[in-house]
């Protein structure tokens, strides 16, 4: 009884002596061959030969230097008039306490004179530039409500807008810190006796006017609180027409930024004297922010900014320098690629 073991696991045939016949061939289990499964897809295997690398660097420098020169020329072509006025526009006797002055109800009109250094072709863009103004601060950036700006139906939606969300329980439209701190200095220009018309139409993005700011949303309770942050809005105009607000609401990524104020659509000639009548209302004094007025033409690359040109020239030059270095090193100390004597196991068994 105890020996009746079925021995199910192994067996073989004795008579013909071949154990293989017991195990039938199951070739169906053979994996299917394909170039992908065998990791044999045809591949391009480049290596960093001196020829390739040096040509690459030369090529980059050949491309970059002209682009750099072109960018630099574009930037130099732009004529820019900058006038910093935040201190100059405060009467000398008030300069000890600028904040008190700006918060007072005194007449803050100030006249500045600009000289055009070169001929400026229309359109001439008028920007105001603020400095040390952190429009990118986390609490500031979030302090707006896009829904409320877009449509009348959600005008009571003031989430995210604290602390400028409600006044006496009713919603502020537009709510939030960004709108509350709307820039409100004003500029008007004249050349001699001829006043220059400032076109303030279409200074904001069309997409913003059409889709982000509703044409049925009207300002409400705006700047009616105790503390005024900046400019007021005409309550009879819908938000989509409040272009200064729309421009302002496009927050800047940097603490120094320029925003479009308007356009002058006549050419200015070299030596022209421009008188600017300036309403200095905006309080940057409490945080030592600078204010500038900028008149600028534009090029294919944008405003005056030498950075790209200089950077391109630098990178191009550097690449040229590297290419030359590599050529020299290659000539002075040629080195055969893939020399087996660099393999330690081909050199000596013990060390490496």
């Amino acid at each position, binding site marked *: 009884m105890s020996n009746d073991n*079925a021995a199910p696991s192994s067996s073989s045939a*004795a008579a013909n002596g071949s154990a293989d016949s017991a195990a039938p061939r199951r070739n169906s289990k053979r994996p299917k061959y394909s170039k992908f499964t065998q*990791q044999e897809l045809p591949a391009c295997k*480049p290596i960093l030969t001196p020829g390739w690398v040096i040509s690459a660097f030369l090529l980059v420098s050949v491309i970059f230097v002209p682009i750099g020169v072109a960018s630099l020329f574009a930037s130099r072509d732009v004529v820019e008039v900058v006038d910093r006025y935040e201190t100059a526009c405060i009467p000398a006797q008030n300069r000890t306490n600028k904040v008190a002055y700006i918060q007072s109800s005194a007449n803050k009109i100030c006249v500045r004179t600009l000289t055009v250094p070169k001929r400026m072709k229309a359109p001439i863009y008028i920007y105001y530039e603020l400095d040390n103004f952190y429009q990118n601060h986390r609490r500031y950036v979030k302090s707006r409500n896009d829904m409320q700006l877009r449509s009348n139906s959600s005008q009571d939606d003031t989430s995210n807008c604290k602390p400028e969300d409600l006044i006496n329980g009713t919603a502020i439209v537009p709510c939030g810190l960004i709108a509350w701190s709307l820039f409100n200095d004003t500029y008007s220009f004249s050349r001699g006796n001829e006043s220059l018309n400032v076109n303030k139409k279409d200074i904001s993005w069309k997409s913003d006017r059409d889709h982000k700011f509703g044409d049925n949303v009207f300002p409400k309770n705006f700047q009616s609180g105790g503390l005024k942050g900046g400019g007021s809005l005409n309550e009879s105009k819908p938000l989509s027409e409040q272009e200064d607000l729309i421009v302002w609401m496009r927050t800047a990524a940097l603490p120094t*930024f320029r925003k479009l104020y308007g356009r002058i659509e006549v050419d200015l000639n070299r030596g022209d004297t421009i008188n600017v009548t300036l309403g200095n209302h905006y309080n940057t004094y409490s945080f030592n922010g600078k204010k500038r007025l900028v008149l600028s033409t534009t090029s294919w690359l944008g405003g005056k900014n030498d950075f790209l040109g200089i950077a391109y020239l630098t*990178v191009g030059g550097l690449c040229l320098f590297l290419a030359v270095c590599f050529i020299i090193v290659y000539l002075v100390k040629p080195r055969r690629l893939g020399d087996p004597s660099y393999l330690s196991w081909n050199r000596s068994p013990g*060390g490496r």
Partner: protein
Amino acid sequence: MKRYVYINDDESPTQDLYCDNRISNRKYTVWNFLPKNLWEQFSRFMNQYFLLIACLQLWSLITPVNPASTWGPLIFIFAVSASKEAWDDYNRFLSDKKANEKEVWIVKHGLKKPSRAQDVRVGDIVWLRENDEVPCDLVVLGTSDPQGLCYIEGVIECPNPDKDIRRFDANLRLFPPFIDNDVCPLTIKNTVLQSCYLRNTEWACGVAVYTGNETKLGMSRGIPEPKLTAMDAMIDKLTGAIFVFQLVVVVVLGIAGNVWKDTEARKVSLDLVKSLYAKFIDWDVEMFDQETGSSSHAANTAISEDLGQVEYIMTDKTGTLTENKMVFRRCCISGTFYGNESGDALKDVRLQNAVASGSPDVIRFLTVMAICNTVIPVQSKNGNVLYKAQSQDEEALVQAAAKLHMVLFSKSGNLLEIRFNASAIKYEVLDILEFTSDRKRMSVVVRDTRDDKIFLLSKGADEAILPCASAGQQTRTLNEAADQYAQLGLRTLCLAWRELKEDEYQEWSLMFREASSTLVDREWRIAEVCQRLEHDLEVLGVTAIEDRLQDGVPETIEMLRRAGINFWMLTGDKQNTAIQIALSCNFISPEPKGQLLLIDGKTEDEVCRSLERVLLTMRITSSEPKDVAFVVDGWALEIALKNHRKDFTELAILSRTAICCRVTPSQKAQLVELLKSCDYRTLAIGDGGNDVRMIQQADIGVGISGREGLQAARAADYSIGKFRFLKRLILVHGRYSYNRTAFLSQYSFYKSLLICFIQIFFSFISGVSGTSLFNSVSLMAYNVFYTSIPVLVSVLDKDLSEKTVMQHPQILFYCQAGRLLNPSTFAGWFGRSLFHAIVVFIISINAFAYEKSEMEEVAMVALSGCIWLQAFVVIIETNSFTVLQHLAIWGNLIGFYIINWIVSTIPSSGMYTIMFRLCSQPSYWITIFLIVGAGMGPILAIKYFRYTYTPSKINTLQQAERLGGPILSLGNIDPQQRSMEKEVAALSITQPKSRNSVYEPLLSESPSGTRRSFGSAAPFEFFQSQASRLSSSYSRNCKDN
């Protein structure tokens, strides 16, 4: 606790007491899936951390980004993990269902009825046909083989279910009591276990004793512990470092970071990539074994890159290095050696003459060969006799005997018949004293039906048989014969016999029966009783069986050793056989290049002294470029592991090669454990059930799906058909996996740090308020789409061709030493991300300054810059471009724009019109090109310079391979070496007299010098490999660098 199984009894209480045969491997049910899976996912520390961050981000006061950007990926990633689990579980459910509904035949009151597998109850009689799968654990009652045995009633008394597949100590009582003895002992040999297949037997029937999840297999099943690769550990460490970094940033700057999401995303992409590595192994045509028709299989998909970091390989010998195809080669009968180098013993005319003339010694020898075994002869239809054997050695012996006209003709019940020439002789088998690895011998007690004499026939290892020889017999010749055969790498067995007196047998038989039916310590009791019979034997002779080396074993070992992998051979065979096999498969180098040190001794003191001496030698020689190996046997090993663990550990670290003979399965596992505890990556390879523990213990377990069944292959992480596939598994798959994971993981860190650094820089110009420059959608898409697709195709990257790697296996060292992923390479990537962040940030805020400094635009410029840089970083780090890579890299770049254009058309999104606006500005494109030029120029310059002037070995090989340098002609030394080896074998056989002289360096003065010496002097010089071996100090010094 015992369980009583009532056979054929419908009213027995067992029907309800024990579970039914429904097997379930499922981890979840429909109801507990969600909570259980979530619980499991959140029991991981990382996930807890992520959850914490995600919850913190719900608090809008402190968070810079929309919580959706945090919760989105989190939920996505959890959903991916959960659905993977669910899918796996569903598949398990399907396979369970299939198994449960399989048709089985149950015998009820003598009638066979079809039933479903899940309805089998304990106590049912199951009837199986050939090639049926066994549905549950059965005690076999009868098979088609010897005789039918039909209707019975009884009870089986057996222990409660456990998972030890080697032990089943039970008793059978029949109703009504039957024969003279009412208790019939049952062992594991009487059972067939669940999931086995019935082969070569027409039918069998058995009683279900364990069913469902209580079967031996079911109990030992279980989800194996997940293995963590060295690389995962390193990545986790680096992640930890990043978290600390992030924490500092959070504390200092108040930015709750974004890095963590990337690490989670990285985990998902790593998982994906790893399963692809595993698929590549499964698909590999070159690792398909024609002979058995089995392809390689990666059961564990998560540890491929560990294959590339293997430092120690522990290999079994029989069936792993050798074919496990036994051929009878030589024998020595009463002092006469039969068989020589020109032919087998079977063809030896002297032996044939001796058989023909009926020499009594030879006849007795052949009788033992034919009878003393558990082989079952089966008459085939054409009159031939087929043998079914569990042991390949026994089969070889029986077949050899048959060729010498001593044919084991039939076995039916206790009666067996052998035919010698024309005469049939019948023997009654009285008892079988089974083979165990402790006893190392087996015996049968038979009664010759002609004269009623009782004989004890024994066979076993020489050290197990010779001490039992009768006092008068000279065993010196036999000893020598065994030695000589072992030296040729043959497996030796001693055959012996003794005539028993009737009363001696009867007395012993009682004790044996009692010992066999104990339920406690049965094995030990039986061994003790057997000892009482096996003495005063007359040793008849020695047989030598050859187990041929598998194809390509020496080359494979040679190559892997050149790759810096240390080999340990753990075998149950005797020392000399092991050493010879080791020599013939390049395992150890012969004198004077190599040196063998023995650790032995009978007592603890001897072992201790021997160990110290070996250790001393090892310390001295470790600085020399010499191959030093130590040899230890199971007994000495046990003492060394128990009492001198520290010394032995040091020895293990110093020695590149070791041979451990006569070791038990648990010792194998202990050795693996020992090396693992020294922080080495171990790979265990074996083919049999005795290797399972070692395979499970090792970092990587490789099973050979060979002749000894699939036990090892099932337990292993990888199963391959032949040993020679190991080199491809390690050098190709392991190495590529390592390289790819190294790139992938560091690249993931790079890209998330890049964004992180930019955010940090931005916070400096936003009043350190923690504003996020990028909007939530972009951040999410950055991780999920833009940066993960190009890197996923890096699984197709190959730094070197397979051929080059095979020619220069030393290159594996870069993986072993972790050269491609360690804190210093990580620092490189860290620096690169910092540099790129500076480039992107400086350029985008300066190029888009003043009137252009609109937040969304600047963010988009910076993001585009990052994406472009990523693409170029992938390009510069990719070694070979296939179509797919091009597609992914450029397609991704195009995809980035398409996605952003689509988002830019949605009026309610913050990015409305932004991308169109940017793309129509020349300044945007000029800025992007500037970023790419400034970001990649220095990277390319540095890479080029290092590549050309301080190339790593990988670079050199790349250059050689792609420029077609002379290097390809190096390294082709294998064929030559093979021919040398054959010569060695021939030489050493022709000079048997000189074999005692050498190859025992340093041991001649040892106190235990009685140990037999072995080896031959001159021929070994031929062995010397032309490729210089790396000394052990080489690999270790490198590791420290």
